[in-house]
């Protein structure tokens, strides 16, 4: 990692000549590049958010920490297996469960506070252990899992009291307790809310409190280090700086979306890999369950899917369990419908029927690997097509033996070597000579880009084409793509 030396001297300006062998002729990485855990996290793509806790029983979105523990009284023992089974039907690969919201009520038997399910209002509540039941169910179902734990704690008298007691006695121990529920966690979600004008209980002191800087107050660098030591593939979201909030809660990312920088579009020039995660509500009321709520339609959710997963972001879609500790049947039904819709619309790759897939240029092969265009369609994410160094533009042509009804084009960059493509275009043709350009903004690709050929994420209609042409018009370096799919 580091080469250390005690003392040496050199001639001013002298360059030590050294060349790194590259027998495979691999393209140089374009930095920043994602870490291994960030790559694994990005591959999760679509997962659920489950807001369940004290607020479920007080009809609130933000409690203030004064809620009596007895208010937490589910009518059944909460059933995370039912939650995960339902979202798996929609094609989700995992979920994040809220185990402590801003009100500080802990959904596991913690040693750090009495404000937990240990003192719940009924036996169902006292039998609740969301981290345990959620992680076990996820493993059984072959899904990824993680926890949301609010750093802000309106119940604790220590929070924001001017000392480090909260962090040392409450927050860090809680995170360590949670990390121990599974070394295979994929994400820990730290909400950025930090006080301000929202009054809280604060151990009976009541009032408003603020902290100056969340990163140093919560000691995020060392929290991140410790969580990684226990759960090496667990991305720390938000203040953890390994994945970024996409900048809205409406379920969309920018059509231009770099995995560096901040907000809906990111920033090509930012130095740190920080891919976007879009958090969105699948129901029409709050993040927590509220009486009378209903889910959005499968079509609305599919639109969100296209505008997040299809725009180089991950989607964490919220389905709140109700007071029985289960997802309402209406949510379960719409999840099944969504899964069917995704499968119908994005489940059959027409590239498999293409008579030819060609590229205007292909990188010279290495000793044991090639960068042929066939790598785009081999289903292997570790093989990829690339151009030679210095070639930042290229064209990929797809041809079928007869006209097809095309709806979507999906591209995936080989982001292990960095996000590169700045601009591309998609054209279709029936005769190979007269081309129609897709008008959708086609700037960045990133981990995954799904382009609707009818230029609409809201409507589903195909276009007839026998030929498809993708032109990479600008790239930070030689472009690298590992998958091309057409639906």
């Amino acid at each position, binding site marked *: *990692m580091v080469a250390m030396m005690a003392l*040496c001297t050199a001639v001013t300006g002298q*360059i030590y000549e050294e060349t790194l062998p590259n027998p495979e002729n691999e393209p140089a990485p374009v930095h*920043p590049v994602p870490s291994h855990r960030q790559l694994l996290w990005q591959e999760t793509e679509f997962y659920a958010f489950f807001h369940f806790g004290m607020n479920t029983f007080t009809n609130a979105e933000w409690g*203030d920490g004064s809620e009596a523990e007895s208010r937490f009284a589910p009518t059944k023992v909460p059933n995370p297996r039912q939650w995960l089974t339902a979202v798996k039907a929609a094609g989700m690969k995992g979920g994040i469960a809220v185990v402590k919201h801003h009100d500080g009520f802990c959904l596991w038997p913690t040693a750090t506070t009495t404000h937990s399910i240990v003192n719940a209002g009924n036996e169902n509540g006292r039998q609740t252990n969301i981290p345990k039941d959620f992680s076990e169910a996820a493993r059984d179902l072959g899904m990824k899992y993680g926890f949301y734990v609010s750093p802000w704690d309106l119940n604790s008298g220590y929070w924001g009291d001017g000392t480090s007691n909260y962090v040392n006695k409450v927050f860090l121990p809680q995170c360590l307790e949670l990390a121990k529920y599974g070394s295979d966690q994929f994400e820990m979600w730290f909400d950025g809310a930090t006080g301000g*004008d929202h009054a809280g209980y604060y151990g009976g002191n009541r009032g408003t409190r603020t902290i100056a800087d969340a990163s140093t107050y919560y000691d995020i660098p*060392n929290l991140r280090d410790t969580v990684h030591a226990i759960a090496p593939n667990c991305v720390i979201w938000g203040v953890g700086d390994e994945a970024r909030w996409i900048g809205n*809660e409406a379920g969309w990312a920018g059509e231009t979306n770099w995995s560096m920088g901040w907000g809906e579009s990111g920033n090509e020039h930012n130095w740190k890999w920080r891919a976007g995660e879009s958090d969105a509500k699948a129901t029409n*009321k709050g993040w927590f369950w509220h009486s009378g709520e209903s889910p959005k339609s499968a079509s609305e959710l599919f639109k969100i899917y296209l505008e997040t997963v299809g725009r180089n972001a991950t989607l964490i879609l919220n389905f709140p369990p109700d007071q029985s500790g289960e997802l309402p049947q209406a949510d379960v039904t719409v999840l099944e419908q969504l899964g069917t819709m995704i499968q119908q619309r994005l489940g059959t790759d027409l590239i498999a029927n293409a008579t030819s897939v060609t590229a205007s240029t292909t990188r010279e092969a290495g000793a044991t690997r090639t960068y042929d265009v066939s790598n785009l369609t081999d289903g292997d994410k570790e093989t990829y097509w690339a151009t030679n160094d210095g070639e930042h533009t290229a064209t990929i042509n797809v041809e079928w033996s007869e006209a097809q009804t095309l709806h979507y084009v999906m591209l995936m960059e080989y982001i292990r070597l960095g996000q590169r493509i700045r601009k591309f275009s998609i054209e279709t043709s029936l005769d190979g000579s007269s081309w129609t350009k897709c008008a959708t903004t086609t700037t960045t690709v990133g981990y995954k880009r799904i382009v609707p050929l009818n230029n609409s994420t809201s409507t589903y209609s195909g276009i007839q084409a026998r030929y498809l042409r993708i032109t990479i018009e600008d790239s930070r*370096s030689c472009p690298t793509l590992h998958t091309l799919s057409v639906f």
Partner: protein
Amino acid sequence: MKTNHRFFTFLFSFLCLLLPSLVAAQHITFETPDEYKSIGVYDAWEQSPFRTGALDGSHYVALTENPDTEINELTGTAPNPSATVLSIQRSRYGSNTFGARIDLNEPLSLGTAKKYVHVLLYKPVGEEAPAMLIGLGKRHDWEGQKPETQQFWVDASVPAQGQWNDLVFPITTNEAVDIYSFVIVPDLASPHLRTTDFVAYIDDIEVNDSPKPRFQLVNYPLNFDADQAPTRTDRALTKLTFTSTGEIAKNVTIPTTTVYNNLTEKTTVNAKAGSTVTVKMTYKGAWMSGYVYVDWNNDGQFTPAITNHQPTEDSELVSYSYLGGYDSKGVSQTNGNSVVNGVISCPAFTIPEGTQPGIYRMRLKVDWDCDDAGGNSNPNNLLTANGGAVVDVLLNVHEENVAISANQLNGDVLRSDGTALSDAPIPFGKSFKIKMEPAPGFTYTGVVITHGYNLDGPEYVRDNHQYRAITIPATSFNETTNEYTIPAAYIDGEVRIEGFFTPDMDGVRAVQTDQSNHSAQVAQDFPRHFTVDGRPISPQPVCRGVNICRGVYISNGRKILVK
């Protein structure tokens, strides 16, 4: 400060003399090897060849002779007279975070205070990228933690090339953290297009309490004191008039109490690339001429380049009415008396096509036959003696439309038609209406509008204000439509809006008190007293649903709007 020259001047501070012993212990000059534990290279990239062992980092750092000990001829001092410095060969195989690692003799404990790490950095000409400081350390109360945990990353603006810079990195940590190593990243950029390495130099690392550079370049120097009063009453610049294609003419009244006026905080001239700009100077007096400068490369100085009596394409002296017998159109002038009917008319100049949208410093000068932006320093024709004047303003080179976006939790900030702000750019310089849409259970308290350029970077570049952040409280919004019209003046570059939403409190829309029994957080379900101005609303402890009449109240000096 009087400089009498047009070059950069170094301002030295001697804060190190006042610093406590702790700070003195964290001063590394590289003159003797006992000042640090060891030196090496570091790369934050997991797959770096310097981590895998494919490359040996010991060849990439060394102690070398100082490449630049040149004494500034006017100050009589060298920015860095040190004999020995640390060299770091920026490997093209390292990542954008590849840098020199310096292990400290003793761990540095910051406590809860913010400290500043000063680093002298010298980069060759042609290497334009920011620098970064990475801190490696651990918590002193955690057994077994490695001291290589990354504790902070702090980047600095692009250092000037080919000379020593004093970079300042503000650092904070949790109070339980000790810093064991600094990593100085000289080139925070991806090296993927590099074909060769280059060498950068590091020296004089010091940790102290001063956010100011130990020396710094003076931007846009003057050849007289900045607060110099006029020496003549018969001559004065009183007004500037700017006209440019497609823009409203701008008239700026010039104060006459000082020779130099820095109006960059309140005067910005707008123009598009390719457009023509004309400057007229209303001047009382005669036998003086007008000069217009633009710092196109934002390097803190105005560099004239005149060929065949006309400015070259990259000249930063863009217009003049008289210089060596010609004006900037190359037209011969019989003399330098450019004042006609009380006005000096500078020939029109064009904003070059392809000029990047952004903020540029523009200087207007009344002087006698002189291309020096700092003012004529010839003892026989001093600008100050001749009744000249210098005025600095900002030039906003903009496009037809600007990007607008929003960031917020628990609600949306939308266009008035309900669509997303970032759906499409909006016209530059036109007012624009936004609408707040809180999520269920939330209300809004206002927005912060950040507008301008370089929004992810420093607010000032070369002392030029890049962007501003304006807080708009909820009371400024239309209470019925939840709409607010952003003034045209704010649509002057990229526009980012951060909306603030808070849980709805049973009709109490915006509340802030500092005593719990005056709190209006009545949405919660525990009993409490609620008072306004000390007068109980209810004689008994109340719970949610307390009936407060609509209106505006003042409680503990704060406004409460009950809708």
